[in-house]
């Protein structure tokens, strides 16, 4: 089943040769005019979008000054704009979410392809992909009302016990906070990893499996030494998309992270509360008119730069991998 929201048209191979010739004849001017018009309108909107974002963030940069990058103190209400806690929050929640979601996601995809009988495959993978359909706000509700109490009463104290109170499992265990955020985020991105990995795994030619088995490999060896290496590129693509999603998640995290507070100015332990760039924008949105509000635009820009950089980095890794095999 195609996960169409992640397809890129470039991967669908029908060549455009016939279409090039069509318009060299210059026919059907009205049609061409309309289409160019639409593209121009959209282009203008895109430009305007970027312009508004940059224009409104400039006063923010000026207002906050370099303290955005040099200070580690974030407190919106007091005009303290050091983004370090937010950047840390963004990076940490995304990193640990990936750490949880990627092995589970890829493992689940392998299980769907190699352990589940073919007739049931569609049902099982639809079930897992159902998680991707759940809106962020519902994740927020589930995280805040169910997981927070579970973690606060059982999960976090258990972890703390296991580590005998050593860092990073020390301090208060409120339930809300970075750990909850990472877990909720992991649940949100896992279906992306599973769905794309499954498509990639299924696409591995059967002959590779047969070849390995006929050499005397065990099933585990076949998966680990033959199948997974061939899927590396596709899985990296899946992880990239998952990362992009995680970095930009706003609403679910806004409701479960607990915010940057005076008790927890930096997310320096597992049970700390904190915030991310995206969540913070949502939380402080109310004051967007004042000068301080412009700082939120600066945050949005920083976020977009990070997301853009990660996406670009991963795309170039994928491209380099593909070149290796040609």
């Amino acid at each position, binding site marked *: *089943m195609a996960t169409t*929201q992640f397809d890129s048209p470039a991967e669908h191979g029908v060549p455009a040769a*016939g279409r090039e010739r069509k318009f060299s004849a210059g026919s059907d001017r009205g049609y061409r005019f309309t289409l160019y018009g639409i593209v121009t309108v959209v282009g203008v909107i895109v430009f305007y979008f970027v312009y*508004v974002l940059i224009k409104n963030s400039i006063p923010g940069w000026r207002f906050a000054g370099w303290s955005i990058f040099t200070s580690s103190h974030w407190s919106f209400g007091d005009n303290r704009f050091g983004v370090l806690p937010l950047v840390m929050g963004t990076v940490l929640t995304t990193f640990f979410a990936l750490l949880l979601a990627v092995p589970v996601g890829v493992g689940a995809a392998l299980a769907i392809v190699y352990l589940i009988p073919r007739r049931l495959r569609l049902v099982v993978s639809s079930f897992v992909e159902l998680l991707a359909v759940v809106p*962020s706000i519902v994740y927020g509700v589930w995280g805040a009302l169910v997981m927070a109490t579970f973690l606060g009463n059982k999960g976090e104290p258990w972890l703390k016990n296991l580590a005998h109170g050593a860092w990073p499992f020390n301090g208060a265990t409120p339930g809300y906070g970075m750990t909850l955020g990472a877990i909720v985020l992991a649940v949100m991105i*896992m279906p992306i990893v599973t769905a794309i990995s499954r498509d990639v795994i299924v696409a591995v030619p059967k002959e590779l499996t047969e070849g390995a088995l006929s050499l005397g490999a065990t099933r585990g060896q076949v998966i680990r030494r033959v199948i997974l290496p061939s899927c590396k590129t596709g899985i990296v693509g899946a992880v990239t998309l998952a990362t*992009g999603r995680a970095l930009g998640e706003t*609403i679910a995290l806004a409701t479960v992270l607990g915010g940057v507070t005076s008790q927890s100015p930096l997310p320096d332990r597992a049970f700390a509360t904190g915030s991310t760039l995206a969540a913070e924008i949502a939380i402080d949105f109310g004051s967007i008119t004042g000068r301080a509000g412009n700082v939120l635009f600066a945050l949005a820009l920083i976020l977009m730069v990070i997301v853009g950089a990660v996406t670009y980095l991963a795309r170039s890794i994928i491209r380099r991998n593909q070149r290796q095999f040609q």
Partner: protein
Amino acid sequence: MDSATRREYIRSTSARSYRRRAIYSRLYLLAIFVALLIAFVPLASILQNVIGHGLHYITWSYLTTSQQLPSIVSPNNIGGIGNALAGTAIVDLIAVAISIPLAILLSMAMFELRSRWVSAVRAAVETFIGLPSIVFGVFTYVSLVLTTHQFRAYYGSLALCFIMVPVMTINALAALESVPDTLIEAGLSLGLRPSRVMLHIVLPAARARVFTGIFLAFSRAVGETAPILFVIGASQLPSLDPGKQATTLPSLMYNYLTGSYPTQRDSCWGIALVLMVTVLFFNILSRIFVARTNQQ
């Protein structure tokens, strides 16, 4: 080593290592099975909670009466979600009405035209898909709400367009590109103008996949909170006037969740149930169209 010795070495190593390899293989298969089980747990928990806690809210009056502010005297009187349902309908339907033609025209443009400008716009659209939806809310707020000093329902629709149009466009473009060249050439050789070829041949052939994209984008937009939260304001009246403020199911949930009344917080489950049913409905529709595409 001569051949017979080699063969002996290989056979004996193979026999000796078998036990270890078999155990490793079984462990590996067990690990991925466990991964699959783990993958099920959160979904089961969410479904169980949403249905378990939310089901008893679903009554006709809940769906039709509007939200009411609880007071100290009657803290349990929070009313229903009728206003949110109306708001969701108006915000999302307007968004769809704008997005679909725009997306289809845009995909046609990307399909037919080959200029650097078009490729640039296409790259921008593909980038927009990955952007956090909050930035569209921020943009809409600054360009519309701050300038007009009003919250309006259709501002939310416009914000949703930023989310829906890229998804629909990319899907529609893939749909158009999947139409075999032979069909196009046949139409052209019959003397049809390119616009006619597109309208009468290509679009109908690509129909199923275009619908997939539409339903997919719609199911995503219905659940969106961040972009619309601060541009539509809030309304306790079930009005369908796009020029007025509105409340949608997600925005209501967010306000209830971050509010101070436990009764409101608890009723989030009921709203979640309604929202999930709606989202699931359109998502399943989109999968039906995927199946139809694969049949062709």
